[in-house]
């Protein structure tokens, strides 16, 4: 039965769609829209009839709408600037008061006198848990997405797709509690086993205790980002032009080869975008990690031993007890998290941009 998905045989190639989306400058559609308004002027001589052309309107729905969108855009900008200014103003005094190195000190005692705190271990933990979560989630997500889009019968695919979208709606505190109270058991057992046989690999070393480890945290994170990455990549895979899939099949490709030659390369920018969204969620995830990680302040690649911490989890865990300097310190850490997310996004854009010559003619 079907080797290609369930669409008509002559859906277009990618080529034609681009020209449309690229050749219209932003304002073009707006200008087109004005024409019918003018011809409807009372007493007009009919469509395209004789007489002088009606004058361009000074105040119309068009202008009002443009003003409205502009106002909305400006408001957003103002709010962002205001927030940034507020955060920076709060962070600076705390950073001034810090007697340890903000970048390298492994510890978080902003409430002490003199205050000492460092972001290094937190930033490291944030990136490590998020990277591990991606490493575990992305291959699985893409496998599921390919199955749903190209192997499963259409109905099954749609039903499972819906279920996965539902999973994405589960609040993260539920995942966190589940990880803390249930998943910790199997993960501890797995950790003991890994440590027994693979302790020669540094990340599996150490002598316990196991449980509230980076492994548990990133596993919970992986499960949390799985739905969003799956559902986005599934959409991406479904958008491959049938014409390209058929081209591959007609060259004698098996289904997997067809996926490799036509579907995966075509979906590349979309896959990267999906992974980045997943990464964004993983980097910013707060409560699930606050509940599952061991909250220590050390830079260590060991993923089995209890420990690990992230910027967001640290904010959640320490905000209640924080004094003025403590809050400033946490805000400063938040700014670093913001910077990390920004850098990650810039890298993603750069990757997409690098092959833009190809993807533009594709998408």
């Amino acid at each position, binding site marked *: 039965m079907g080797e*290609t998905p369930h669409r008509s045989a*002559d859906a277009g190639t990618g*080529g034609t769609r681009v020209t449309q989306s690229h050749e219209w400058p932003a304002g073009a559609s707006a200008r087109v829209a004005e024409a019918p308004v003018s011809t409807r002027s009372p007493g007009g001589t009919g469509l395209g009839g004789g007489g002088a052309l009606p004058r361009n309107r000074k105040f119309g729905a068009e202008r009002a709408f443009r003003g409205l969108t502009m106002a909305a855009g400006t408001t957003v900008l103002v709010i962002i600037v205001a927030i940034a200014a507020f955060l920076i103003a709060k962070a600076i005094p705390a950073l001034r008061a810090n007697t340890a190195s903000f970048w390298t000190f492994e510890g978080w005692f902003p409430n002490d006198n003199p205050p000492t705190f460092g972001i290094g271990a937190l930033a490291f933990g944030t990136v490590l848990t998020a990277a591990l979560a991606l490493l575990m989630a992305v291959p699985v997500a893409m496998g599921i997405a390919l199955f749903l889009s190209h192997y499963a019968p259409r109905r099954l695919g749609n039903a499972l797709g819906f279920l996965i979208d539902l999973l994405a709606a589960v609040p993260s505190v539920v995942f966190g509690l589940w990880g803390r109270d249930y998943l910790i058991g199997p993960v501890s057992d797995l950790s003991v086993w890994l440590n027994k046989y693979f302790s020669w690999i540094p990340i599996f070393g150490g002598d316990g205790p196991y449980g509230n480890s980076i492994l548990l945290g990133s596993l919970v994170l992986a499960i949390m980002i799985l739905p969003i990455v799956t559902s986005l990549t599934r959409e991406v895979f479904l958008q491959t*032009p049938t014409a*390209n899939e*058929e081209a*591959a*099949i*007609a060259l004698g490709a098996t289904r997997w080869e067809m996926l490799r030659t036509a579907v995966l390369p075509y979906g590349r920018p979309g896959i990267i975008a999906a992974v980045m969204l997943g990464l964004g969620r993983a980097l910013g995830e707060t409560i699930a990690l606050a509940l599952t990680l061991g909250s220590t302040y050390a830079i260590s690649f060991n993923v089995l031993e209890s420990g690990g911490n992230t910027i967001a989890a640290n904010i959640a865990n320490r905000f209640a007890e924080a004094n003025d300097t403590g809050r400033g310190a946490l805000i400063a850490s938040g700014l670093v998290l913001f910077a990390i997310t920004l850098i990650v996004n810039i890298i993603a854009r750069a990757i997409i941009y690098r092959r833009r010559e*190809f993807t533009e003619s594709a998408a």
Partner: protein
Amino acid sequence: MAKRVSASNVTAYYGGFKAIENINLTVEPKTVTALIGPSGCGKSTFLRSINRMHEVLPGARVEGSLTIDDQDIYDRDVDVTAVRRTIGMVFQRPNPFPTMSIFENVVAGLKLNGVRKKSILEDAAEKALRAANLWGEVKDRLAKPGAGLSGGQQQRLCIARTIAVEPQVVLMDEPCSALDPISTLAIEDLMFQLKDKFTIIIVTHNMQQAARVSDRTAFFSIEKTGDPGRLIEYDNTQKIFSNPSVKKTEDYITGRFG
């Protein structure tokens, strides 16, 4: 390098809908055969059943027997992918892989066959592009995206991609319908050259084209909408266009219906 294609009692379905019924025809090696007929009479369906692309659609199936040089391509033991490598296909709309360069497009089929050596791929690409009359136009920009070519160039690129794997039979489904007259002529010239090596079967709505390029012409038609398409007449192109034996064929080629 060219094989005889024989269809006997080929009937094809889309789910419960019978699109063509009992098609019998034999295409000799190294000839061009044109399939003509009104829209919806099952030309594409028949063409797609020759390289087993028909069954790719969910619910679609083929009955009857189709052989190339006496080998049944619908035999249970036959590897479908081998059938499709032996019987290449060019589609109506140019469909180069948008993410690949011109070079990568041409060698895509070879790579699927496990050819990895750069020198072999380069030689094959040049050979195929020359055969497709495209080499001169693209030799300086092989690394550029295939989708950046003009429509006619893209279609010739697709032809190059198809013949790069050295098939025995080349199927073309209205390969010129999206092209301008100049590109169309370029592709028609190409067909003349290609029939030295391949058996070519082409679907076309263009009577002049059928008359110009083909040795034999098959006329398909349907009684009325919902009926399966049938082969009405199959003969030398000259005969079909000058003195058809069936009234319906004459009506069609003189433009009285369809």
